[in-house]
């Protein structure tokens, strides 16, 4: 668990902050960095705050990068950042499939 420490320092913009990281939900690097600055220090928190990984692809292409950005922002190795909780269903499922469900 990463300790929450208020650094008291100002948020510093980076030249590539406008890069889209999560393609589905169109979340930028700057937004993720700012979320960490504002106290979201886990993948779960950043995900709920900004929705990276909650789009159609379910984080398949961005989770690795979101993890790296959070780790870099907190100055910790990426291994220290736990992935967001794995949940059923791991792929996007149309609601009609659940509505069709024979088991219920």
């Amino acid at each position: 668990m990463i300790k929450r420490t208020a650094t008291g320092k100002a948020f510093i913009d980076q030249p590539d902050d406008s890069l889209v990281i999560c393609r589905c939900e169109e979340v930028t690097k700057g937004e993720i960095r700012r979320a960490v600055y504002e106290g979201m220090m886990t993948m779960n928190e950043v995900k709920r705050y900004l929705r990276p990984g909650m789009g159609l692809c379910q984080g398949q292409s961005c989770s690795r990068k979101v993890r790296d950005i959070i780790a870099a922002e907190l100055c910790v190795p990426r291994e220290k950042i736990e992935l967001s909780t794995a949940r059923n269903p791991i792929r996007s499922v149309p609601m009609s499939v659940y509505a069709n469900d024979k088991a219920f």
Partner: protein
Amino acid sequence: MIRYEVIIIGAGPAGLSAAIEAAARGLKVVVFDENDKPGGQLFKQIHKFFGAKEHQARERGFRIGERLLAQAVGLGVKVVLGAQVVGIFDNKQITVMIDTQMEYYVGNSIVIATGASENVISFPGWTLPGVIGAGAAQTLMNIYGLRPGSKVLMVGSGNVGVVVGYQLIQAGCQVAAVIDAAAHIGGYGVHAAKIARMGVPFYLSHTIAQAHGTDRVCGATIVEVDQAWQPVPGSEKFLDVDVICLAVGLSPMSQLARLAGCLLQDHPHKGGLVPVCDEYGETTVKDIYAAGDVAGIEEASSAMLQGRIAGNAIACRHGYISRTEFERYHAEYKTSLMQLRGGTFGHDGGEKTQPKHTAEGQPLSQTLLTKGYLDERELTVFPGIPGEAARKQGLVAVLECTQNIPCNPCQDVCPKGCIKVGDKITNLPVMVSSAHCSGCGLCVISCPGQAIFLVNETYADNFAAVSIPYELVPLPVPGSKGMACDRSGAVLAEAEVISVRKNAKSDGTALLTMKVPGQWAMLARFFKPGAALQEG
């Protein structure tokens, strides 16, 4: 709820191999795959695989896929396609979405063989249409017969980057460049050499600065990076391309393993977060196994063996084979897997550092690592390169195999026993004796690295004959003229095609023999048809 003795998730090389192994011992097996076609990425692999005979070396990936599938189906394995496993619950229950229905299955054992997903990098313009994954390029070309575009920039020089670069050229695209942020080419030197001699430049220590275009890619700017990965001002280069292909690594698709409660660990040399497995591939959750790329990124040949190891272990656990029989198979598969994991690029578990020498002690070619081709002056130290004396005697095979890659088809196919790799398949091939070489060319067309050439310096006065492997269309006809190119793709001189041989055994690879001026015998390694001699 339908029960199977073994549920396998993923019909790629690992999943199908696990299925075959378990079904052959009599277990009831089902394989689910989300794709409409089985085989995972195997059917997109149109190059010949490395390894030894038992790894199905020198076979093209798609043929291995066809065989695995036929074997599995023949053994009564049920392969369900278009089936997305979306959930995994306690007691090894899974939910599978098939068409518009959710279905429920439970297994006595589960093998997670979900493979890998492609990594991406972000740069301005990276979401533009025309920026695609290397896997997407393969799917378009090799499954659907569609070129992804005309001119391609390949980002990443690992095996995926260089192999797909070659496939793009085979499909009729131009590859403008291969770039990599690292200072060295990441893939096998022999794969890089195939495209280098067709004139593809490698820009190492380079990254992509921007994809240009408003609604599609219409160019790319690349830039050199320094040792701290920072762009070097003024080093920008514009490349006129319409496709930017990303081949920047793979990550194990381990979500299902996490969902199942398996312990996962970060392993940088395995590609990321992978389930912790014992030597049989069993995760920390009893009766749930992981095999193939999901357990660590490797080649398909290794994935097949991991699948076999898991299938064998499951058969023993459920009493379908005796302990002794199980141990015998396990030892065999394990040895075979360890062979593949040896050598310069091996996954032996240790920290990887860039080696400076081959296992035999020769200095590794630096031009191969930075430019993608061997410099003639570096060649002489390698045991597969015949010296001047041998070449004066007549026709010789030149084995330009200079890294310890687990592979030995050259030794296998030579009917005269001229080539020796030895028991350790990562050894460099040695030219035992050129005296018996009949010039059959089997080694040339079999070498998965296309690193073997026949050179006859005594072909005619002032002319040499050089035979090369050739896999492009249209196939030149004997008598046609073209250009002999060196290992970097630079034009050396006019050349004439003497003969073109192709048969069922060569599986698409032609043996093209060209006549070149004698002084270029050890330099000419590619034939470019047509086109008059160009300046420079």
